[in-house]
């Protein structure tokens, strides 16, 4: 097998793919909460993706991604047997895993993918786990079975009510709290806006809340500072100081504004990339 070769590729939902990639060095070292940086081809951009799973024996890591721009589009065009141009990791500080007691894991959309290895590790550490999985609509919900297998209880919500209950993840969390559930830790991963509202709610309940941030990155090793985030008024580099932080201290508006900085250019490069009709699967 060649370095960074795609060993398996599966369609998980509209625009969401799961890829297993041969990267023995990374598989050996990967811990929950860490990410990789990849480049699909020579003219491509470096993008970070959280490792969704790893198998050190097979030397394989799993990446799950949603096609949202040029790089993820090009990535989705790779076939089994093709190789990524570059792949480096594992990066970032691993999740601190211990027996907290009862942990609520909130995953929204593609955020369920990075949540999965953390839940797996928390389960192994003996925690009781309640999952709240949210998606826009039923067909976009990913990893439901895998998550259910780890959870003591799994609750699902969709924006349009096509599956589980109609509404957003915070509604579910609210009711969980109202029914008197004892919660020791909340972990929320999803779009910034979802994490922001989960944190606003858990701040009211005074529940410690961990989030994983996804700012724009270039090198991923602390060299450039593109991924600056503000945590409790202090500037941190998400690539080395994170990507996980105390959700109650995050400056969410800053994160969301910085994420939008290249919107115009991203549209241009995505349109150009789509003209290349290698056509996914």
């Amino acid at each position, binding site marked *: 097998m060649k370095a960074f070769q795609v060993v398996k590729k599966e369609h998980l939902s509209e625009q969401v793919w799961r890829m297993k990639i041969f990267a023995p060095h990374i598989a050996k*070292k990967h811990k929950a909460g860490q990410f990789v940086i990849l480049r699909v081809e020579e003219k491509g951009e470096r993008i970070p993706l959280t490792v969704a799973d790893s198998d050190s024996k097979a030397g394989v890591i799993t990446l799950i991604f949603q096609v949202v721009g040029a790089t993820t589009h090009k990535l989705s065009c790779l076939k089994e047997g093709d190789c990524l141009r570059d792949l480096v990791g594992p990066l970032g500080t691993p999740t601190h895993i211990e027996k907290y007691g009862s942990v609520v894991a909130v995953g929204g959309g593609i955020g369920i993918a990075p949540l999965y290895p953390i839940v797996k590790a928390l389960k192994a550490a003996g925690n009781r786990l309640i999952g709240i999985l949210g998606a826009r609509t039923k067909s976009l919900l990913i990893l439901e079975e895998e998550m259910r297998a780890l959870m003591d209880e799994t609750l699902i919500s969709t924006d349009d009510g096509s599956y589980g209950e109609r509404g957003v993840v915070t509604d579910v969390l609210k009711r969980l709290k109202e029914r008197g559930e004892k919660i020791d830790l909340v972990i929320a991963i999803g779009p910034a806006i979802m994490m922001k509202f989960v944190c606003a709610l858990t701040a009211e309940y005074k529940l410690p809340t961990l989030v994983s941030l996804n700012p724009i990155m270039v090198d991923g090793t602390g060299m*450039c500072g593109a991924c600056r985030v503000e945590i409790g008024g202090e500037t941190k580099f998400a690539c080395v100081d994170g990507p996980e932080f105390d959700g109650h201290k995050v400056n969410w508006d800053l994160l969301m504004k910085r994420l939008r900085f290249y919107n115009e250019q991203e549209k241009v490069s995505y349109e150009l990339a789509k003209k290349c009709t290698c056509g996914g699967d």
Partner: protein
Amino acid sequence: MAKKIEPRVPMPEQSPKERIRNFNEVPYGYTPEMAKKEASRCLQCKKPKCVSGCPVEINIPSFIGLVKEGDFGGAIKKIKETNLLPAICGRVCPQETQCEEVCVLAKNGQPVAIGRLERFCADWERSLGEEKISLPKCAPPTGKKVAVVGAGPAGLTVASDLAKLGHKVTIFEALHKPGGVLVYGIPEFRLPKEIVFAEVRILQKLGVELITNYIVGKTETVDELLERYDAVFIGTGAGAPAFMRIPGENLGGIYSANEYLTRSNLMKAYLFPETDTPIHRGKVVAVIGGGNVAMDSARTALRLGAERVLLIYRRTREEMPARAEEVHHAEEEGVEFHFLTNPVRYHGDEKGNVKEMECLKMRLGEPDSSGRPRPVPIENSNFRLSVDTVIVAIGNLANPIVPKSTPNLTVNKNGNIVADEDGRTSREGVFAGGDIVTGAATVISAMGAGRRAARAIHSYIMEKSSR
């Protein structure tokens, strides 16, 4: 009667008007005739001061003598006895404070153009074709293995010196391309990347193995490397940008110089959308700082189409750490210098992007620890400048990944690895050199440190095996 000294032969270059519209190298370099003429200005001093002014002690009068005779092949061989990266050094060394500063002719303000001649020899050899480039002789294999962390100037020097001594060297590089700051930091118009890659290919021909996309400290730790290698050299550079920690510094459009230059140089964002990595093409760009990195950032911003580039420096022209040549080029290209000025706050628009920079006027006070006059703010002198892009080029700190993941490796209060003159650290078998030890400095000083560390590594591994 003293012989009349001819003036320095000027090096032809792209005109400022033309070059700010492209990323091609600014100087064209000497022709053979120009090189011979310039070489003939050398007085061939009996006790040459230039050699001791060179951190890697190139036999300068000797190579210049060969250039004068037209023996360019002999000249490049002479240079390569002590410097394997002459095409790079000829371009980015601060010769005016090293070899050329102590040249006897410098008294008249016109030292021999040693850097230009070094560059000429290297380019002449490269123009013959890569297969004709002479490889230095390597000692028979010793069976010893050395891991070099970081493919920048220090690491490349260590690798070449140890390969020549017969050791098996593997370089581990975090980024997807080798070269370190030579590739992500220094722009194409000052150092064409192909020159760096050609030098690296020569190292590979000497048997050096290069592994990119490999972060020591993450992918594998220094301690794990020590199980597989007889010694480890750490040359990870000054890879963490400093910010001023002033309000508004995280607004959109405010970059560290590292990010701005990495996007443009390593990721080729100046070719966007032909390449995928975007960069903000600002109309009014402020660059904070007075070093070479600030000049590189300012000149890159011009080439990316800025209408105005304001260089903001808190001291005066005299204290600027940038090379005179870089300042001169920046001025010629239209960079506006604002001295005795320091930003104190940024103001943003509704989208969270920078629109104004609030500055204070400064005056010079008593000398500080660097020996330069301390800039002192003038109270109530606040004023605002409209800008849409800011590049913070006030220096780099040590990258923490290797020190944090290596137990008992001593670092100083700035996070730099503590090492002696020969690169020995607090850990046996672990050596370090370049910016990770000294803090941000020059390419050639990192190469000098690499040279000394290579000698120390050689004696360490040879003694260890005879014990």
